[in-house]
């Protein structure tokens, strides 16, 4: 085992296993998710049925996107352990993290990765089952081709890595005294929305579609989910992977540099 990676692998394992055992409110959360999807799909369906417009995706695909997005929301910045690190930064307790012989960025990155993965795996089961068994229009209809579904999972995994880079960027922003809590938190919300948490991106105006397709946050969730919902052709896979890779590296670099700067400033000014 690579000695340098050892601490981070250990942290990842611990949080993943610990997270998977966290059962409090399990069913309540699952049912909440399911009902939310019912409500959202009902509203979207009203527009499809009684409106006059055209959409790039069918109602069934939109419903699928909404189901999948609800399940994948845990993977986005701003949930779970993100909030504990967030409040730690707000309170100025970051100094205590520096007492460990760890690279702070990597520590937080790995924490986010394992926590999100644990939450996702934990919550996906019942919701998925209920989604597949739902009646009528609401039912989750996945893409016909199993390859597409596989592509979706794969890109979701790589999208998760991008998502963790984004949350670390938000931490870096938060630590910067010139930016602080407010704008950094707003950045998180904006990231979620542009990842498709509010409405599947393909339902946004046509004029925006090019922008939406290439902005960094789409690669976190919306693009991967399109494969699973059958709302994107398999041929787009290389393009999506490329987008994720380019944005991932850029945001990772930026986050590391910015955080390094802020940490240096922090240890001079005090926590």
């Amino acid at each position: 085992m690579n000695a340098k990676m050892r601490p981070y692998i250990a942290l990842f394992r611990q949080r993943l296993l610990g997270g998977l055992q966290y059962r409090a409110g399990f069913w309540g959360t699952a049912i909440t998710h399911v009902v939310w999807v019912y409500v959202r799909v009902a509203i979207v369906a009203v527009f499809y049925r009684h409106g006059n417009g055209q959409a790039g995706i069918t109602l069934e695909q939109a419903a699928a996107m909404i189901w999948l997005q609800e399940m994948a929301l845990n993977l986005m910045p701003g949930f779970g352990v993100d909030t504990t690190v967030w409040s730690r930064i707000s309170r100025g307790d970051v100094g205590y993290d520096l007492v460990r012989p760890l690279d702070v960025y990597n520590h937080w990155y790995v924490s986010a990765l394992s926590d999100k993965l644990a939450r996702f795996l934990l919550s996906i089961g019942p919701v998925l089952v209920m989604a597949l068994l739902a009646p009528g229009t609401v039912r989750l209809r996945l893409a016909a081709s199993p390859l597409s579904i596989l592509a979706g999972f794969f890109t979701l995994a790589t999208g998760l890595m991008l998502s963790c880079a984004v949350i670390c960027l938000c931490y870096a922003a938060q630590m910067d005294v010139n930016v602080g809590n407010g704008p950094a938190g707003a950045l998180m919300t904006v990231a979620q929305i542009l990842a498709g948490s509010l409405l599947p991106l393909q339902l946004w105006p046509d004029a925006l579609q090019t922008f939406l397709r290439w902005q960094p946050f789409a690669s976190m969730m919306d693009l991967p989910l399109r494969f699973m919902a059958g709302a994107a052709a398999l041929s787009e896979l290389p393009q999506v992977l490329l987008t994720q890779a380019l944005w991932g590296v850029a945001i990772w670099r930026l986050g590391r540099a910015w955080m390094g700067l802020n940490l240096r400033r922090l240890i001079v000014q005090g926590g």
Partner: protein
Amino acid sequence: MSQIVLSQVCKTFVVRKRQKGLFGAMRGAFTRDKELVRAVRELSFSVNEGELVGYIGPNGAGKSTTIKMMSGILVPDSGEITIMNRVPWKERTAHVAQIGVVFGQRSQLWWDTPVNESFELLRDIYRVPQAGYRRRLDDLTALLGVEKLMNTPVRQLSLGQRMKCELIGALLHAPRILFLDEPTIGLDAVTKLSLRGFLTDLNRREGVTMLLTTHDMDDIEALCSRVMVIGRGQLLFDGALDELRARYAPHRMIRARFARQCAALELPEAESVVLNGLNAEITFLPARVPPERLIARLAAACPLTDLTVEAPDIERLVAGMYEEMAL
């Protein structure tokens, strides 16, 4: 051989003051009065390997700031710190891998996980070789008597149990230096005693250098032969404990409670006698009169129901020092 050297270290914080009242809060949205807090002023001292040093002072004196600077998580405004031939904040990762820090008011363990998992995580973070880890863990847990707690989640531990585990967590990687920031705060007497015993033992066996900040004078008495007193960011005293006592807090106080009303007490050797109903406070100088003699006189004068001999607490001691130095 000096392991820790501080030379003319200064650290000043800018504190934004909160305004009072609603109007103040509104105004506070635009401007804040700034106040400069000089946490540490020209602090210099050195510690040799294997020493067990007490670092005391009132709240806000600069103890935690010093510890943070020595840990490498805070950079002084001026001055130098060299620990084990390193500048702490410049080589943070290498430095913290060789020290252990215990913060009394803050847990360094993972809240939701069982104790042994926290330890295993620490083992991996500090890259402790697998070979010695098990044995060291068993040794430490046996010494502190916490073997049975290994599977308990940290959040379910009592304060005393948690402190013991924090201590173990800080020692797993066999650090050469241990910083303890108020480790006994809030603990019961029994736990304090066992912690003190453990630390003395550790220092003797492994030669771990220890720097201990505390409010409890008994901790100092039990553990440290050398004491540093810090007040308002400055080092007020650095030397043997006895010398500190003798110079700044020579008085002791006997508090006695009598079984019945007593006639006026005749204790010419005492500094002062205060009678209050059935209670009496007798201040004396141990150098001048041994306490046994006073106690014998008291007992002879009147049957006693209760008796304590007190030493002045740190706050009073340092206050006394301030007075003497006209600070």
